[in-house]
């Protein structure tokens, strides 16, 4: 992590990235020459109407897709220089993902869902278990960790997905529309958890959403439209998102 201390305090950087999709003869540009840098310890939100390219930007910054032009780097690594296997290893060590659909295996209990990716880190099984339990307790699911997805509510499922993503203690956490499948109360719980992770662990949390509730709870909001950054707004006095998850847990 020497890169982190010597480099400017940015963990995610994009310089002049462009991306377009080809469908038959039609080439649709999605991102136009975007440059940005994102700091750790903050909840950064990419906001904009659907189809504006925000998910594509997230995919490029997280190394899931390569840009047509420009370069993206994460934790000082140029993502385009890593091959598929190196990217997988990078993601295993450094990144967590939360998706709109919770994507939990129906056969596994909450605890097993969280243990599964952890077990590929090569940790001893006692530590895998301890970390999974800790992560689930952290999102307020301690009493429900033996339940399968079918027995959990939507909000609880998303919290399992968050626990699965953060149990690895990643430096980077990517979330794609994490609240849009949830009702107001559960959405707020998820927002608070994401915010707390950024604050207490110094994690870089990059979130893509058009949920207005998230805008008011973010440290920084990037507004994108038609593949360009329209607005980059840092909220100097972010609302105190210190509400503990335990208070929300059912």
């Amino acid at each position, binding site marked *: 992590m020497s890169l982190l201390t010597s480099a400017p305090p940015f963990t995610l950087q994009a310089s002049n990235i462009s991306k377009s999709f080809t469908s038959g003869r039609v080439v649709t540009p999605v991102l136009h020459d975007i440059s940005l840098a994102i700091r750790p310890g903050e909840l950064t939100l990419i906001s904009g109407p659907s189809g504006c390219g925000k998910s594509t930007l997230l995919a490029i910054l997280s190394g899931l*897709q390569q840009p047509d032009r420009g370069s993206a780097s994460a934790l000082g690594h140029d993502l385009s220089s890593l091959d598929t296997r190196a990217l*997988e290893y990078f993601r295993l060590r450094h*990144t967590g993902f939360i998706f709109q659909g919770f994507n939990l295996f129906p056969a596994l209990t909450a605890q097993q869902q969280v243990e599964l990716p952890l077990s590929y880190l090569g940790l001893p099984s006692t530590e895998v278990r301890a970390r999974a339990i800790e992560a689930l307790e952290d999102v307020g699911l301690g009493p429900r960790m033996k339940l399968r997805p079918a027995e959990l509510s939507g909000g609880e499922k998303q919290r399992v997905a968050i626990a699965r993503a953060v149990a690895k203690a990643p430096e980077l956490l990517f979330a794609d529309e994490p609240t849009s499948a949830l009702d107001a109360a559960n959405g707020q719980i998820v927002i608070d958890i994401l915010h707390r992770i950024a604050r207490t662990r110094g994690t870089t949390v990059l979130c893509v959403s058009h949920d207005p509730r998230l805008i008011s709870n973010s440290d920084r909001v990037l507004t994108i439209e038609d593949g360009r950054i329209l607005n980059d707004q840092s909220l100097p006095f972010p609302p105190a998102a210190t509400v503990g998850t335990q208070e929300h847990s059912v």
Partner: protein
Amino acid sequence: MVALARLTLVHEWRRFLPAMIAVGFAGLLQLLQAALVLGIFGSASVYITGSTADLWVGYPGTQSVNLGRPIDAGVEMRLRMDADVLRVESFRWVDADWRGARDTGGVSVFVSGIDAGPDGLMFARALPTALRARLAEPGAVIVDRADLSTLGVNLRDAATINGQRVRVVGVTSGLRALGGVNVLASLATARQLDTTTAADRITYLVAKVRDPAQAGAVAARLSDGRAFGNYAVWTAKQFAQRSQMYWMFDTGAGAGVLFLAAIVFLVGAVITSQTLVAAVVGSIREYATLNALGVGVNALRKVVMEQAFWVGALGLLGSSVLAGLFFALAAHYNVPVQLSPVAAVACLFLSMLLALVSGLAAIRTLRHADPASLLR
């Protein structure tokens, strides 16, 4: 390590059931087919495998034991001259026509004329000594219990073979033949029934050697002399294989069996691979999420292959149990089934291969587990 493959298999067993049934049926069919083929074609060589002779001497080029042509009985002298030969016996094969007490029309029978003495080599494994002694009575014959209804007789009934009167003095088992009915008689009785062969000729000579392990060398030595006429010497094992191969391949029956096995394999593989593909597709978003979290594609492939393995193992467990039941049933109804451990393992291995090949086909579906596709 979370056992994703096994936990999913247990939780979503309904989804995997068609694959398990497909593998199970493929395994069951291969097992039954192999047992029937080995049982039925094994009976082509029952004369050899049911006897304790080490050497068989017959007409050169004889392809199967039922196709023997007479050789000069003087060859017996050549055999007896060899120091390693302990005992020589004649075996007379007579194709004959049977008419039973009940009206069954003519039945084609194979009369085996054998030495009825207590040390006789022929059918020593199928015939208890006391039963064999009864053949000494003129016109006495012994048949397989399962053939009684075909022959239209009961124990101790009289019948005619080639127009000559015979009497069933005993029944035994393990004598069923291919394409006809085996009838055991003494050499003297068989000679009477044989209307075509000259008296100084015999279909086969069988011999016991001092060291059965040296049977091959003795056979080679005995094959040399041509002074006693045209004859060939085989070890019992060679001749049994020769007979089975003739029935299996030269009659076309074996090709049919192999064709059926290939069809079973193909259909089983299609069903199994489609079921596994459906299971992968059903969890494709979860697999993609794992890949996003850094779990490599190879690790995901391992999960699919593990599922294929368990599907195969459970399917084969089912087929083994069912096959055991069928074999018990077959034994009860005197159906000739016979399964060597090697053949059984080969059948199970083939079916496991089917499951694993299907797993490999399903693995290709994992290329759709692209985490970028979740960001839509």
